[in-house]
């Protein structure tokens, strides 16, 4: 299902995705130096939007400083099933993403951009191809856009898995001894960032006047709102927007899972007087991650929802690293046991065994979800131990893959 995209104040303000409309809103693309781009990104405190929130200026400077052939990779794979913001950008503002990538590529002296697109949603590459066809093919340097199909597996969109795919190897995570910026595609310096990050950069550089530079956390976030039924709704909000402008009172009164399946739960009501900001959420021990917001459905039990997600995550292992291959199913089984009134200790023990042991962040993210569920839903788990459930009805929400 394609996401429903709400209009937004900045990235999503174009009424249509055509190049013509895009150019009427934004300045034309020019070649600018990597240091200029990095300075702009630094002034706007631009952080990656793929979940790790790494400062973009640092990453760009690291790649620019190295010699030899470089690569630019736009990660559009969006492996998280509850996230649709990158798809939303492709639908409504593809040229922002492409402009951002082209700005970086030109600054780094690279004439080819790799687009990591999801194999599962062919329409995304089709839309991108259409947008690329609109762009002028001028300039002495022939600019190339190369598509790479990323598998539908959860871990396949991870940075090292994408780098492996672009390098011509299997689309699975590997141990990253050295950051991708230093050794990425084929061992060469690679700037790999999320699609939204590139779009944010483009909007920053090509329309600086419209940004709100005075806040501690300037800029906007794209949020993927997951409701009980229907498509994912993608909205764009300025940092510091109150949560009551994003979710309704009912949703705010129930627990919300922030950051996606590798994210953290916040208790019901915790977001009522808070804003969409990293600082506010850090107070709650949570974070935005890649902007995924999953409010609990009415009458649903958060423990059972966590259980379902864990079952899905355990099955998404790349099956390469022992602790993930063996440990995650065991952890999911132990949590399932707990959800049906069993012991807590096995869950804690397995969480400790799995954490930090694997080539990618899949085990860590899964453990993060488990720990946050244990912390937030102590009462519910206690109730389960006594054979009752605080959810009025057990809604078996489909965990879409």
């Amino acid at each position, binding site marked *: 299902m394609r996401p429903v995209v709400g209009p937004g104040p900045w990235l999503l303000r174009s009424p249509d995705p055509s190049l013509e409309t895009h150019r009427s809103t934004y300045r034309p693309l020019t070649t600018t130096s990597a240091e200029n781009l990095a300075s702009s990104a630094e002034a706007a405190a631009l952080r990656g939007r793929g979940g790790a929130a790494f400062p973009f200026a640092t990453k760009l400077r690291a790649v620019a400083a190295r010699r030899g052939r470089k690569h630019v990779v736009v990660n559009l794979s969006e492996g998280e099933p509850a996230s649709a913001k990158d798809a939303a950008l492709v639908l409504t503002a593809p040229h922002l993403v492409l402009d951002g990538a082209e700005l970086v590529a030109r600054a780094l002296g690279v004439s080819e951009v790799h687009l990591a697109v999801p194999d599962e949603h062919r329409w995304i590459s089709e839309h991108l191809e259409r947008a690329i066809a609109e762009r002028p093919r001028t300039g002495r340097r022939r600019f190339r856009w190369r598509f790479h199909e990323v598998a539908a597996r959860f871990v396949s969109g991870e940075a090292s898995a994408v780098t492996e795919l672009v390098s011509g190897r299997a689309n*699975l*995570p*590997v*141990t990253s*001894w050295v950051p991708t910026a230093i050794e990425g595609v084929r061992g060469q310096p690679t700037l790999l960032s999320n699609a939204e990050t590139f779009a944010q950069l483009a909007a920053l550089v090509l329309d600086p006047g419209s940004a709100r530079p005075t806040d501690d956390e300037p800029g906007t976030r794209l949020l993927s709102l997951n409701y009980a039924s229907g498509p994912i709704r993608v909205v764009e909000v300025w940092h510091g927007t109150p949560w009551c402008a994003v979710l309704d009172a009912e949703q705010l009164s129930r627990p919300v899972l922030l950051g996606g399946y590798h994210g953290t739960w916040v208790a019901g009501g915790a977001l009522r007087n808070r804003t969409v900001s990293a600082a506010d959420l850090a107070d709650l021990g949570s974070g935005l991650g890649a902007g995924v917001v999953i409010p609990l459905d009415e009458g649903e039990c958060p423990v059972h929802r966590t259980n379902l997600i864990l079952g899905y995550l355990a099955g998404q292992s790349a099956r*390469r*690293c*022992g*602790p*993930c291959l*063996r*440990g995650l199913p065991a952890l999911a089984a132990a949590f399932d046991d707990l959800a049906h009134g069993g012991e807590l200790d096995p869950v804690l023990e397995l969480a400790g*065994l799995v954490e930090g*042991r*694997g*080539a990618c962040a899949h085990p860590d993210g899964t453990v993060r979800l488990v720990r946050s569920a244990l912390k937030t839903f102590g009462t519910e788990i206690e109730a389960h131990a006594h054979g009752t459930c605080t959810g009025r009805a057990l809604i078996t929400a489909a965990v879409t893959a």
Partner: protein
Amino acid sequence: MTAATNGRRSRIRVDWPSCQARGLCHELLPELIDLDPWGYPLVLGEVPPELTAAARAAAANCPKRALRLESR
């Protein structure tokens, strides 16, 4: 990567996709490497200078070359 021999500590890192739970590292360095219930290495801490040689042996003897020693 090899560890410094001038009395500094080093760190053991596991290349998880290569590790096949053969357990040789645990045989050669039980003070620092334990095994989880599925046979995969649990690194218990940093390598003190006196165990550097043993840690190097553990890394050299891994049949899958999945163990590396990194100097801090």
